[in-house]
């Protein structure tokens, strides 16, 4: 107990002696844990409203449609749907209902809609829940809630549908169809922009909304052969996908089937995309946090050599010294995981706004025990991985050497030194400074690689978002753009902290070498340029690796579609990163180059 108390007290003192460094450690780990927490907590929250809507509206397990032949073949026969209703496993059904494509005029705007003909009485399967107003009546249409919100329609509004005047009788939600803008098409339609070189089929609707009318009204506004839709209930809803595979056909004139699982997948795809981005971002931030913590802890160790000597001289065993150093990092990691869990839990609802077109709010993001365990484990892992090597090294340092504050001997890379002799003084200094601590260079390269990978992946994702604009689909694009922006900003911020910390660690570590170099005739400008270049060279390598890494990362996240960010943006990115690192490191490098030489040289004699 006494030993444990001693470790805790020494670790606490250690943290309080350098509060700024402790705060930076906390910030680095908390950034990763916050993002990870949001990613983990929003998982599945959007499926709650869909389940609720399915229950309230007697949602179908399978929706069967039959569409006209766009090539002008025979009109669809609703009887083909009747045979599906008689298939094994079907316990109930509603329909077939006629569906017509039409143009909805709202003042000066025109939007496409698919108008479903329904009886005034509620059906056994798929009873759209009216959230405002009434159900269909002659001359009165009911508008799907998400479409109503996007179109700005309210009960009582007059609208023109296929040239005929109607009034909005009500607003309703259904679990049978995916809400606007990802509407499940019951007629020939196209969502988003047509791919280059292709154009929608004649008469196909573009980004249609859904409205319900009486059957008579649908038949009256129809200007082309009708489609038909039937809603099926199965004995076991879990068999829906198998039922679709067994009975579905994707040919005009034959029934096309969609399972409720498919609809759920479409409804929750925004949350899944958001979660995927956040989890990937959280992982990248976690890797960056390891780099940050490794540099910070390494710097602390270098700074603490004498303290380690004092501890050992006072009788502390190497194990106790390592335990003290690890305890300090673990304490910060636990605090950071707590901060991350709270911040992530508070932030998560921003990414799970109510899905219009479904009943009830999106499920409250919940912190599950497994999410807490994962986040805490990641934070502890980051701290332990980054601290272990320097802690063991510090513990093994000889007591006398530690008391003398002997710096860790620099590494010698012969070929690099030979190469540097052929370069101008600033580059010579840069290469030799970098070569003294190759592990720090690797951390710098890794830090920039991870950041640039994240930025490039975000650019690719943005390119994909920009490539598929949906009418009034701003919510989706905006939310994903927001998530990308948040992750990108956090990655850049953490990388910036890393760059400054690495530079400062290099400055402190190279105090003596810098002073000697200046005593031998290097100008302050040459030295500061050398210090900055020592960070810019790894940044250049990291930026190049990051461009490839980012595209590979995005391919891994979304193997189906990998849009290339514009070439010019990638070309600008690499020098941009190098210039940004130069700017970030300029101040610490200038400060270091202006240090008086004599005190640094005399410090060794003190």
């Amino acid at each position: 107990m006494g030993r444990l108390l001693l470790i805790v007290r020494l670790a606490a003192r250690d943290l309080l002696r350098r509060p700024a460094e402790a705060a930076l450690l906390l910030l680095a780990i908390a950034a990763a844990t916050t993002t990870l927490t949001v990613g983990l907590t929003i998982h599945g929250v959007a499926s709650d409203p869909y389940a609720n809507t399915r229950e309230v509206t007697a949602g179908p397990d399978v929706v069967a449609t039959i569409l006209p032949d766009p090539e002008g073949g025979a009109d669809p026969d609703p009887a083909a749907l009747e045979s599906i209703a008689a298939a094994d496993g079907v316990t109930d059904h509603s329909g077939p209902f006629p569906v017509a494509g039409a143009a909805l005029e709202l003042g000066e705007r025109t939007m496409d809609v698919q108008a479903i003909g329904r009886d005034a009485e509620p059906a056994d399967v798929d009873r759209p829940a009216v959230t405002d107003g009434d159900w269909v009546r002659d001359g009165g249409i009911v508008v799907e809630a998400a479409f109503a919100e996007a179109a700005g329609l309210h009960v009582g509004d007059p609208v023109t549908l296929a040239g005929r005047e109607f009034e909005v009788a009500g607003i309703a939600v259904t679990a049978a169809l995916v809400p606007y803008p990802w509407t499940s098409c019951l007629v020939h339609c196209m969502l988003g922009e047509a791919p280059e070189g292709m154009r929608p089929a004649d008469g196909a609707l573009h980004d249609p909304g859904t409205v319900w009318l009486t059957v008579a009204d649908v038949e009256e506004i129809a200007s082309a052969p009708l489609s038909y839709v039937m809603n099926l209930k199965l004995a076991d809803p879990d068999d829906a996908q198998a039922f679709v595979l067994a009975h579905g056909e994707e040919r005009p004139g034959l029934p096309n089937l969609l399972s409720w699982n498919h609809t759920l997948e479409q409804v929750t795809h925004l949350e899944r995309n958001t979660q995927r981005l956040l989890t990937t971002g959280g992982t990248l931030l976690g890797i960056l946090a390891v780099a940050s913590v490794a540099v910070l802890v390494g710097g602390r160790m270098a700074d603490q050599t004498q303290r380690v000597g004092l501890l050992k001289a006072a009788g502390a065993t190497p194990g106790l010294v390592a335990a003290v150093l690890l305890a300090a990092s673990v304490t910060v990691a636990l605090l950071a995981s707590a901060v991350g869990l709270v911040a992530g839990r508070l932030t998560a609802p921003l990414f799970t706004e109510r899905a219009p077109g479904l009943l009830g709010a999106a499920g409250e993001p919940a912190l599950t025990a497994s999410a807490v365990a994962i986040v805490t484990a990641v934070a502890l892992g980051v701290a332990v991985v980054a601290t272990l090597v320097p802690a063991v090294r510090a513990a093994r340092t000889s007591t006398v050497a530690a008391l003398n504050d002997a710096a860790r001997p620099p590494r010698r890379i012969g070929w690099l030194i030979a190469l540097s002799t052929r370069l101008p003084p600033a580059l010579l200094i840069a290469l030799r400074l970098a070569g003294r601590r190759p592990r720090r260079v690797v951390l710098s390269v890794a830090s920039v690689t991870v950041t640039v990978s994240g930025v490039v992946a975000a650019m690719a994702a943005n390119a994909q978002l920009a490539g598929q604009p949906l009418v009034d689909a701003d919510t989706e694009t905006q939310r994903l753009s927001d998530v990308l922006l948040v992750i990108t900003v956090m990655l850049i911020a953490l990388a910036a902290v890393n760059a400054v910390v690495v530079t400062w660690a290099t400055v402190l570590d190279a105090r003596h070498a810098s002073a000697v170099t200046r005593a031998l005739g290097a100008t302050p400008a040459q030295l500061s340029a050398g210090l900055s270049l020592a960070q810019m060279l790894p940044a250049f390598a990291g930026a190049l690796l990051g461009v490839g890494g980012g595209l590979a990362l995005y391919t891994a996240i979304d193997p189906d579609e990998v849009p290339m960010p514009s070439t010019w943006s990638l070309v600008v990115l690499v020098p941009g990163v190098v210039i940004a690192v130069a700017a970030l490191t300029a101040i610490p490098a200038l400060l270091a180059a202006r240090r008086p030489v004599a005190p640094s040289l005399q410090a060794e004699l003190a």
Partner: protein
Amino acid sequence: MSILSTRGLTKSYGDGESLVRAVDGVDLEVESGETVAIMGPSGCGKSTLLHLVGGLDRASGGEIHLAGRRVDQLTERALARLRRTDVGFVFQAFHLMDELTALENVELPALLAGHSPRAAKARAAELLDRVGLTTKAGALPTTLSGGQRQRVAVARALSNEPVLVLADEPTGNLDSAATLDVLRLFEDLHDAGQTLVIVTHDERIAATADRLITMRDGAFVDETRLTGGSTGNLGALAGLEG
């Protein structure tokens, strides 16, 4: 001909009651080819004086002239050029780069001065030969004895053929045998016409100079011209032979 002169040179720290004059109105003249030893107790300001003269530190007042040029008002950049071309430093702690071999340490000032890698390497090899360390050219400082390290440092100080070599307690970290080695090296430099200013508190070292200046509380308190100097029987004079 005077190669170095100072007039009323001062260096002070703090102000008011806490004002400390590390160097207090020093007037110094050093002739070309002369070896001057500056002695005094620890903290008397002799190292500070050396740093001021070599452009490693800025004076609070007074003038410094080196090779006919006033240097106390130079910019940092110009001072760096001065250290690169006109001054060579030898430090008590050697201050060699641990990751560089002896040869690489010696060629560094020439590379910083913009000499070609080939010329810098040739000059470094020549200097290592001059200090008797040709066989140690590829050795890292950590594998060399104290005396060998200091000889490498002396070779490095001579890399750009400076008009003045400043040595700050050059034998302070050495045993007797190594001290003798370094003193012989300085004697060779003296014979070759190199101007040397050596700060020391070891009387045996000081006795090898042409002139001995004693410093106390930042000021010169005594000056003696030595007849034996570094042309005499060095080992016997220094009491180090054997």
